[in-house]
């Protein structure tokens, strides 16, 4: 027993002895006895008698947190895992755990920008939902709305764990107990996690052997690979070009993974993301980009002075969409650039009509019209309504006046 990693006792105090024992049994530990007055259960591992844990059976025991610390440390030692990670896992219901790690120089200390953190969360959510939709409708390469009830229900049951150290790591638990629509031997969560990891494995293999400069080609699309899944990955594109997105799955020991070809870790280097974007575009049904009304805040103004010394050029917007917040770039001539600057300084949202096209991690607004500051637009709308109401009032009066006349 090393106890090299000390665990917070306020966390070990929350562990459920039944859950810990079930985990130990599923990991191959055998019950060999109990201590006096059945205070604790003693388990040993068949690998060697020196592997032994004493699980306290009641939270009322005054040294329960300390004994659980020993148990978790020993279980982790046996699995050559981090005790902190195992503790977090044991605090969650029986689940498959997915980890999304941004590994790069800028995230080496475990900290990333708030914006990138939000993008990672959105990307992880989208990726898992895409995999869940893929399990429900396996024949599709694109889910227009990703609003399948079973997939959404599963996503609602997923839990966001504490972030972990060693780069920036998002931890998401996919509980095995989520009920599924069709009877199946395996829990829905297991189908989702294995589908996700298999799809990622196909993507990783395909993009690692492709030429970045050439259009990507493949023979036999990987199962469960969808444009939505690729979109989710693009949201999580590493902050550093030299970095990589590492996605790993820890499958619950309660149900062993029968298919040994399902990977546990998939690495996607930052340089491969343009290829993932290509795959996403190929999988998305070709539709004419449609003009839509957009609303969002100006995030950065990157314009440069034109020949008259007036700034114009790219502007980054954070748009609110039905899929959550997205970042989009737009090129603005100097008049609209000035309007965007005004909105930025006043911290007011802008509205516009435009065509939104995905471009790697970001979106581009390729053509647009009627860029306005929302407050001004609101004022205009109110004004227009008032004018219309006034006109309608006049009209009503005239109708009222006319009707008797018509009848008469």
């Amino acid at each position, binding site marked *: *027993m*090393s*106890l*090299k990693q*000390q665990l*917070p*006792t306020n966390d070990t105090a929350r562990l459920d002895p039944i859950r810990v024992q079930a985990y130990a049994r599923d990991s191959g530990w055998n019950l*060999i*006895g109990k*201590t*006096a*007055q059945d*205070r*604790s259960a*003693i388990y*040993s591992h068949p690998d060697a*008698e*020196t592997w*032994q*844990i*004493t699980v*306290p059976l009641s939270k*009322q*025991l*005054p*040294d*329960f*947190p*300390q*004994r659980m610390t*020993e148990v978790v440390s020993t279980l982790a030692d046996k699995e050559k895992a981090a005790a902190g990670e195992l503790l977090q896992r044991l605090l969650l219901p029986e689940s498959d755990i997915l980890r999304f790690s941004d590994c790069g120089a800028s995230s080496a200390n475990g900290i990333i920008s708030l914006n990138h953190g939000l993008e990672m969360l959105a990307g992880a959510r989208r990726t898992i939902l895409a995999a869940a939709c893929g399990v429900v409708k396996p024949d599709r390469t694109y889910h227009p709305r990703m609003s399948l009830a079973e997939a959404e229900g599963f996503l609602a049951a997923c839990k966001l764990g504490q972030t972990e150290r060693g780069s920036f790591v998002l931890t998401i638990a996919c509980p095995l107990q989520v009920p599924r629509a069709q009877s199946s031997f395996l829990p829905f969560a297991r189908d989702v996690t294995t589908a996700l990891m298999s799809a990622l494995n196909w993507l990783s293999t395909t993009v690692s052997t492709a030429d970045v400069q050439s259009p990507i080609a493949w023979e036999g699309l990987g199962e469960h690979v969808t444009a939505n899944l690729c979109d989710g990955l693009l949201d999580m594109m590493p902050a550093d070009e030299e970095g990589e997105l590492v996605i790993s799955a820890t499958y619950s020991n309660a149900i062993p993974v029968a298919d040994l070809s399902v990977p546990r870790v998939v690495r996607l280097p930052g340089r491969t993301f343009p290829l993932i974007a290509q795959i996403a575009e190929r999988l998305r049904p070709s539709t004419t980009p449609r003009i839509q009304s957009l609303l969002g805040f100006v995030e950065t103004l990157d314009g440069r002075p034109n020949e008259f010394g007036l700034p114009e050029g790219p502007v980054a917007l954070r748009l609110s969409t039905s899929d959550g917040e997205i970042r989009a770039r737009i090129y603005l001539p100097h008049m609209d650039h000035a309007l965007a600057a005004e909105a930025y300084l006043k911290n007011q949202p802008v509205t516009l009509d435009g065509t939104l096209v995905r471009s790697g991690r970001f979106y581009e607004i390729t053509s647009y019209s009627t860029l306005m500051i929302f407050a001004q637009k609101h004022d205009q709308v109110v004004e227009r309504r008032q004018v219309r109401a006034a006109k309608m009032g006049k009209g009503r009066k005239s109708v009222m006046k006319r009707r008797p006349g018509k009848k008469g």
Partner: protein
Amino acid sequence: MGLTLPLSSNDVESELSYAYLHAIAAAADCGCTVAGRIPDGMGVDAWIHVGDHFPALGYRKFTIEVQLKATATPMTLVRNRFAYSIPIEQYDKLRMTGGESTTLLVVLQLPALRAAWCRSSPRSLAIQQAAYWLSLYGAPDSPNTTTQTVYIPKSNRFTPEGLKALFPTIVGGGKIHYVP
């Protein structure tokens, strides 16, 4: 500017008590881990990890918790027991009952003269003088508010053999009760 010592006398006393504990545990074929800040808040400075074969039980692993103390002030001997004063909060933690663990208070008695605490020669390394152990399990509640004097039997010298002699009682679920 005068020469400043990197460690205070209290720090040196503490380090020597850890060294003493490690030496005794190792000689008794046990592992020993120094506790950090969180377990110390629970009244634990170190853990002794025991793994041994016991008749009727087979191989068993368990842990003994240790609260370490050191003093260079000679402890008063009262009816073959050393009187030693500890803070009341630690007394209350050490006397707690109902748990699975066994917690020992180990007090290292050092010579009054600091230069005599640790001596080395080509033949030996010696920490002077001796440590004594005490279990406060089930000790009575104290009306005191700051400290409580406890009495450590002179026979409880902390030795490898003495430590090993405790194992059968602990593994059998027995408790080492304090006799006030």
